[in-house]
């Protein structure tokens, strides 16, 4: 599993460009598919991985999400928002898998599954690159409930507008606003509670 070295830049796809892509996708254009695939594959996978905390499941759901896009491509409406569409499908697949009791999540709050499968432990370089704040946010995020995690990931990480996130989650904008507010407060509290590496080292030393 490759781990991208750069930070993801929030670049919402231009609306006209998106309409064009949807039109080409409906016509079965593989080039248009590649553009969408390059843009959204890591984002959808990251969302599924952080939501499920299970790499194998996230990979399976990612495959199914893209295959559904392809099967549904001829029936896409011209004004389809590709990002929210993909996140909706991915989210529904995840909750469906959970309902079917196919998910066995690890109870450990560590996000070791986010690291490359070939190397079960992150290298010192990876640790340094990931950064202290990111580590604490990842750990804190993994301790939140799935409902809180999904709204935080959709709005905070994927850059969806709260309205789009509400559609993805199948709830009203007001319900999303409340859930997001609670999730944000909880995440901030958990980040504060998560010990820094320096504190952990001090604890081990004493």
């Amino acid at each position, binding site marked *: 599993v*490759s781990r991208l070295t750069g930070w993801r830049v929030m670049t919402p796809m231009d609306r006209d460009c998106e309409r064009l892509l949807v039109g080409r996708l409906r016509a079965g254009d593989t080039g248009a598919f*590649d553009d969408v695939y390059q843009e959204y*594959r890591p984002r959808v996978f990251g969302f599924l991985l952080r939501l499920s905390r299970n790499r194998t499941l996230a990979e399976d759901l*990612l495959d199914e999400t893209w*295959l559904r896009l392809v099967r549904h491509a001829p029936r896409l409406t011209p004004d389809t928002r590709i990002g929210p569409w993909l996140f909706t499908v991915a989210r529904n697949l995840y909750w469906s898998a959970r309902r079917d009791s196919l998910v066995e999540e690890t109870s450990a709050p560590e996000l070791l599954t986010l690291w490359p499968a070939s190397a079960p432990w992150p290298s010192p370089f990876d640790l340094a690159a*990931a950064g202290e704040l990111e580590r604490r946010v990842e750990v804190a995020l993994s301790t939140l409930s799935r409902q809180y995690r999904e709204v935080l990931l959709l709005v905070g990480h994927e*850059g969806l507008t709260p309205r789009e996130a509400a559609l993805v989650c199948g709830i009203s*904008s007001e319900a999303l606003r409340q859930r997001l507010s609670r999730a944000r407060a909880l*995440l901030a509290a958990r980040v504060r509670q998560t010990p820094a590496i320096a504190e952990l080292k001090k604890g081990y030393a004493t």
Partner: protein
Amino acid sequence: MSVDDGPSNDTLAALASLTTCDVSRRHARRLRSRCHALLQRQATANRSAAAMPHGSAFRRMFAPALGAAWCVAYLLEIVRRAAAAFVGTE
């Protein structure tokens, strides 16, 4: 903060900077190939259907009618022969 303000506070800003993860290149290539194959199959099927409007009409109406006519003729022939055999034995 209103619902449309977006990720404006520190917590959400920290979330936005989380590192992106991805599947292996091999997995990505395999999935892409599957999707391409499916897209091309669908596109071919759509093109074929569009290119043969009479073909679809044949499949929808003429073929079932022909089949039904053949079945009726077969049934009538059976009845006729059965009747002939019954009359012959009388």
